[in-house]
């Protein structure tokens, strides 16, 4: 059976869903809901509860905007996984990415939803309850680093072990993915600390992994778009179009 002709429209749409996800995250969580900079883990329940009570509508709206973008983790991750798939005879690294992605979508969504839940009736529940829900969201955001790390390592290994003969990405992208995967690991330290650089508002545990991850989305979008263009050129040059010319 002849292979299907390459349709890059869906590939490009999925690639661009990466920046869409970043924009929705920032507009929702940062601009509207004001979750960044994060509240301190050492803040009292009273302080947290009053923050939710005073900013209820902004938080609800921001969270709604943010969760809208979470499904784009699936499309964006798929835009990367197809290249891994092409380089593998038995697509174990592709499957790894897709399964991790499944979790990433759920995790991203639940993070927003739990914070939305905290803002659902902040006047009617005890302050402690609101704070626990707030904490819950931060655990979902940061403590869930392992599937993200494994996802990125699978992408990197897919590039290193690419056997297709026309690797989609340059090798440095693999090492870049390994680096980002490593820098996400310290997010797990947030469980031990309520203040300082390892708390969920800390430099090493929050700022570094978050900054590195969202930059990664942008870098990978660019590399995926380049890969799509390269693939278009490769397919175009391999197919003879029109009358055959005699090659000298």
């Amino acid at each position, binding site marked *: 059976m002849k292979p299907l002709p390459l349709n890059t429209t869906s590939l490009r749409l999925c690639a661009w869903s990466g920046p869409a996800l970043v924009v929705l995250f920032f507009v929702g969580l940062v601009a509207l809901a004001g979750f960044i900079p994060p509240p301190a883990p050492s803040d009292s329940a009273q302080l947290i509860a009053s923050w939710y009570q005073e900013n209820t509508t902004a938080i609800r709206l921001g969270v709604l905007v943010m969760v809208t973008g979470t499904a784009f983790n699936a499309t964006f991750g798929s835009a990367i996984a197809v290249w891994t798939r092409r380089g593998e005879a038995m697509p174990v690294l592709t499957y790894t990415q897709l399964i991790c992605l499944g979790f990433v979508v759920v995790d991203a969504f639940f993070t927003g939803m739990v914070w939305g839940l905290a803002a659902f009736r902040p006047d009617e529940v005890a302050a402690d309850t609101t704070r626990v829900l707030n904490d819950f969201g931060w655990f979902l955001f940061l403590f869930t680093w392992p599937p993200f790390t494994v996802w990125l390592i699978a992408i990197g290994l897919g590039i290193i072990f690419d056997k297709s*003969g026309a*690797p989609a990405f*340059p*090798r*440095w*992208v*693999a*090492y*870049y993915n*390994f*680096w980002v995967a*490593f*820098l996400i*690991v*310290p997010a797990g*330290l947030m469980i*031990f600390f309520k203040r*300082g*650089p*390892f708390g969920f508002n800390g*430099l*090493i545990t929050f700022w*570094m992994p978050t900054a590195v991850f969202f930059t990664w989305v942008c870098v990978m979008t660019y590399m995926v778009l380049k890969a799509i263009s390269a693939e278009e050129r490769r397919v175009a040059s391999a197919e003879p179009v029109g009358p055959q010319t005699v090659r000298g």
Partner: protein
Amino acid sequence: MELSPPMSATAPPPAGRARGSGAQDRVRRTPHVPGEAGVWVFILGDLAAFALLFGVWMYYRGKEPALFADSQLEVHRSFGAINTLLLLTSSLFVITAVRAVRAQMRRVAQAAIGFALVCGVGFLLDKVLEWTDLVANGHGPTANNYFLYFFVLTGLHAFHVLIGMGILTALLRLSRKPSLSKGQFAFVEGGACFWHMVDLIWVILFALLYLMH
């Protein structure tokens, strides 16, 4: 973009141009970056992350200089010194191993990597001994800020040592092959550089945590 089709080279050629007339190549020394270019994205990036951690250390040390100075007296420099010795020795073995691989002396390479791994195990054992000793004496990570950062920094570094030992194991397997492709040799060099990076980070940690007063 690097496409490295496997070729069974007897001795891996120096990185750089493969074309060109022989005489010109012998005269012209092409610069050689150990490993492949991409691995330096990771190594320099990881060093940058540790530089951030060192900055964090310096910041918190600056806030409580007396506490940090007093607590530093509680750690045994001998543990740290042994670890420094072990890692420096292991790096020497790794250098030997890479040169042996390049010269196709398989036995030497395997032995050298083996010794480097032994040093790594020794490092981790020493770490465990040191940590349990500190905790037993009430100087665990929750004792004060000095010990908190001590344990976090040495813990993150130990994680890198573990990864490094995994890489060295991969290098051990590669060193068993009679000849390596260009890509495989680049991995050997890159893996060795990672180990040197782990060593470098420790040397700085040792100075900051144990020595700097």
